[in-house]
């Protein structure tokens, strides 16, 4: 199991970390802690993986639940000022992307917990069928929700 876990850890850490980063408003340290919690759960439950879904979907399912558990921790994080981001005109292209990301984090953070989880899975380019499987919503329901959250996010980031 150890070898299997190591392989999974190496293959999926980046994606899990990125999703966690989006969930915690871009806070690197918190994202790292969350990703670690996710892989602790993966390690503990790997024996229960039944291959009904892909390992990726299975890990995302654990990730979103661990993220929801994070709600009980006090989320104190310095807020990124929008004005600060927008006024900075001297920055280069690389910094532009970084700032846009920060803006996206802030917008994602404004969403409700379920919306946040769904949009993060959409951003990761997961098919709606898989998102429905992970969240437990019907495919139809997810389609409507995704459309609504996409609009919300686009409006906020623009």
């Amino acid at each position, binding site marked *: 199991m150890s070898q299997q876990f190591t392989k999974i850890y*190496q293959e999926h*850490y980046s994606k899990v970390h990125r999703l966690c980063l989006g969930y915690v408003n871009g806070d690197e340290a918190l994202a790292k802690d969350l990703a670690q919690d996710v892989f602790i759960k993966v390690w503990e439950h790997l024996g229960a993986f039944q291959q009904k879904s892909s390992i990726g979907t299975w890990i995302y399912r*654990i990730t979103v*639940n661990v993220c929801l*558990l994070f*709600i009980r921790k006090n989320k104190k994080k310095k807020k990124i000022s929008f004005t600060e981001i927008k006024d900075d005109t001297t920055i280069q292209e690389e910094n532009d992307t970084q700032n846009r990301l920060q803006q996206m984090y802030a917008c994602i953070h404004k969403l409700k*917990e379920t919306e946040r989880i769904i949009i993060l899975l959409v951003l990761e380019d997961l098919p709606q069928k898989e998102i429905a499987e992970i*969240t437990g919503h019907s495919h139809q329901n997810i389609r409507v929700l995704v459309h609504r959250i*996409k609009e919300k996010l686009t409006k906020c980031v623009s």
Partner: protein
Amino acid sequence: MEFKDIQNTWQQQAETNTLPDFEPVKQQLSNLRKKQWITQVILGITGIVLIAFFFYISAYNTNGPLLGMLLLIGVIVVRVFIEVRSQQKLRKINVLLSFTEFKEQLIAYYQKRKILAFRVIPILLIIYNIGFIIMSYYFYQYLSRGFFYYIVLSYVISFIVLFIFIRKQVLNELEILKKLQEA
């Protein structure tokens, strides 16, 4: 800006180059399990010893300072026991459930915590105060006035601090419940 652009920006994020070493985490996890097991054993033994001691000294017949002391200690032990059990229940919520089912279980957990906060804890606090009142009767008889007032004042202050702490914790949990229900 189109959503596609947002998604592109998201996926352009640099992948984390450094993969944290998981081996120390495994070690910590095994130590944590040992500690949890030890905590449970200690709590169990403490509970048994207290109950045995209660009957051994026939505290239920004496109405004396021991009864007061046992009430005080008993409340603390019960409170710690409830907290440990509650934490265990939270850890046992299955992370393999779908997000919706997991959220429902989490809501159910925090609803139980709410009942605990508004029904069980007030009763415990009342018993705790009864214990102290019994004790203070004997303090008044056997201790100097100065020391008696010192004990009473210390108790009142520590009780207020404890009450503020519990209130803060309860408000925090109610906020979590509200957020989960809104999500």
